[in-house]
């Protein structure tokens, strides 16, 4: 690398931040920020960011954008200072974007017909995602301890929740949709969580011993992983559908099972399919966790006079736990997502809104199912990440 290109390259300290910044800027300029429709079912007129925002809001957003650009450059701020600035400015940008959308909806609807709807546009989503990615990226670069990230995330969530609670978004179409289905929403959220829990518990109860078995009996490993892999390759909708026929047959021939909820449609096939999908990651990670324990450690443990049980509980499990929990993290996030599809066979859950919305061409309803699902997955992922960190032996590996 020549000296001049080196210097040019050094002008930008954080390429990721710069890329996100450019993406956000382009989206704000080219894509609609909001959409204004005369009623729920027609797609509305596109509103650009510059039109939607008040002068003050625009000025504020421009200032924040300038600060973010500054954070991405290598001068005058140091890399760490740049990241810290990002962690201050990016969430402010996010909050201002959210506030501005709600504010615009309120102003626009004040002079429109009661049936009129304001919904968020592509530029809004791009802004939200870009600012969130900026925050995540800054945290990764700073290598901040997990609890700092947790506290920060909590504060951000609280701020956004505050905006919701203050009624800032009540004018938005998606919130209208929410108010229409408020009770059903709570029900389906619980159903969603229950489906995930009912699938994960057996998946762990079966998968953990199977993983240990795969570790202890290398001869079984091939066929076991082969079978589980096969489940994984079946597309989820197909698997759900495939389970309908045998389960309804079962339920029809055994009334007792039917009473227990074994039916062709509903929760039973959904849970079974989720278990089948969850098994592979659980088994694979459990096996990998046990296989990762150094043979010398095991020889020492046995040579010291530990019984098989003691070796398992005092040495193998503690050392394998972080990898096993990483597996749990994968399947939890995966199950939260897959449960959306389970709504197709009548299992309920947040997916019900997604498919209902798709059927009615009501995008807001789709979002009402999708956004909370994503939020659930992110939260679960984060909590399990903390659990993995805690389970990591203090001595490292």
């Amino acid at each position, binding site marked *: 690398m020549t000296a001049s290109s080196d210097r040019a390259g050094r002008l930008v300290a954080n390429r990721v931040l710069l890329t996100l910044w450019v993406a956000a800027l382009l989206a704000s300029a080219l894509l609609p920020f909001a959409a204004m429709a005369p009623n729920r079912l027609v797609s509305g007129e596109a509103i650009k960011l510059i039109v939607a925002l008040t002068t003050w809001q625009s000025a504020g957003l421009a200032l924040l954008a300038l600060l973010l650009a500054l954070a991405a450059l290598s001068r005058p701020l140091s890399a760490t200072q740049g990241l810290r600035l990002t962690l201050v400015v990016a969430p402010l940008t996010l909050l201002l974007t959210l506030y501005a959308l709600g504010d615009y909806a309120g102003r626009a609807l004040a002079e429109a017909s009661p049936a009129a709807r304001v919904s968020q546009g592509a530029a809004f989503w791009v802004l939200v995602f870009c600012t969130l990615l900026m925050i995540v990226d800054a945290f990764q670069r700073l290598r901040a301890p997990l609890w700092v990230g947790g506290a920060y995330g909590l504060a951000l969530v609280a701020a956004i929740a505050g905006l919701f609670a203050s009624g800032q978004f009540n004018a938005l179409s998606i919130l209208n949709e929410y108010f229409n289905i408020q009770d059903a929403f709570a029900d389906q959220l619980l159903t969603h969580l229950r489906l995930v829990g009912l699938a994960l518990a057996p998946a762990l109860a079966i998968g953990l011993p199977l993983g240990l078995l795969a570790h202890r009996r290398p001869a079984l490993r091939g066929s076991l992983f082969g079978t589980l892999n096969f489940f994984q390759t079946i597309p989820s909708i197909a698997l759900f559908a495939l389970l309908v026929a045998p389960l309804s047959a079962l339920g029809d021939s055994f009334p007792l099972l039917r009473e227990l909820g074994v039916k062709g449609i509903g929760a039973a096939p959904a849970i079974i399919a989720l278990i089948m999908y969850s098994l592979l990651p659980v088994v694979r990670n459990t096996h990998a966790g046990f296989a990762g324990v150094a043979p010398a450690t095991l020889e020492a443990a046995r040579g010291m006079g530990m019984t098989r049980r003691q070796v398992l509980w005092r040495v193998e499990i503690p050392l394998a736990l972080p990898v096993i929990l990483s597996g749990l993290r994968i399947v939890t996030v995966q199950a939260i997502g897959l449960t959306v599809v389970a709504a197709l066979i009548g299992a309920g859950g947040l997916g019900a809104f997604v498919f209902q919305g798709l059927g009615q061409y009501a995008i807001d309803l789709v979002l009402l199912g999708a956004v909370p699902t994503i939020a659930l997955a992110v939260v679960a992922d984060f909590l399990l990440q903390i659990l993995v960190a805690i389970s990591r032996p203090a*001595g490292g590996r």
Partner: protein
Amino acid sequence: MIELQGLTKTYAGKNVVEDISLRVESGEFGVLIGPSGCGKSTTLRMINQLIPLSRGRILLGDEDVSRLKPEQLRRRMGYAIQSIGLFPHWTVAENIAVVPNLLKWPRARVDARIDELMNLFHLEAGEYRDKYPHQLSGGQAQRVGVARALAADPEVLLMDEPFGAVDPLTREVLQNEMLRVHEQTRKTIVFVTHDMDEALKLASKVAILNQGRLVQYDRPIELLVDPADGFVSDFIGKADLGLKLLSRRWVDQYCRPPCLERDSGAGRHSWEVDADGRPLALHGGRLSDDGEARTAVNGEWIATPEMTMKEALSRMVWFRVMVLPVIDQAGKLIGEVTMEGVMGRQP
């Protein structure tokens, strides 16, 4: 005391250990040595039943170990291996405490034992007690490994190339520590190595294995002087091995009472001492066999108890005598070392 009787291990019809019989007396330092793959580790691991034996018997004291539960047996035998195998999720103290905890010693006794062992191995307890294995140097980790093996005061210590993975300097230090610890604890030790220097330095007795068979089991000096066959002499036949051996032996180990009587037989020598017991002269004992020649003792051809035998031997050669007076700090004659002694006896 540990005794192997006709110990045999067969893998897929092949005897990797074949009919090994030997006995390591209480307090002895027994070393198994041989080329790679000759069955040293297999033998050791049969002793603590990590590997089931195919034929033969192992006695610990007068108990047949096959009568004991493997876990109980292993808690009575310390075990240290080349790869150490410290538990990465436990601190140094917790690692050392493994067997005492398995034996359910009371807390206070375990703590006291940890301190005692860390002291014994020159590990500053204040600094290292709560460190994790990955924070230790190779030598420190190895010390912790050996300390852990000794923790519950086992009857026997089994060690499989415990110093194989550390640098030569550290190995030397650890060997000296091992000698000192053996001196202090008088444990019965079965030690595996493929390093002849290490074997000669540490062993009371060396077992040389080849292709699963015991070729010779003897004191180090006897291996040198009287190798059982060509394999043994090839295996130990490095040029300066005898001198190396003597450089690790001390005069007091070879010292015998001085002969003060004149005319006690042909070819014998005797010492002339003054009123304080200081040697004045040697009668006889010269290389040339003029038995009566009188050689005045001077300040240089004497030996002290803490002198190495290598040094004593080189003085004998230099002054052309078959015997050296051993004197204490006051200059008093307390014994003698002889050329025959070097060749014949091995403490």
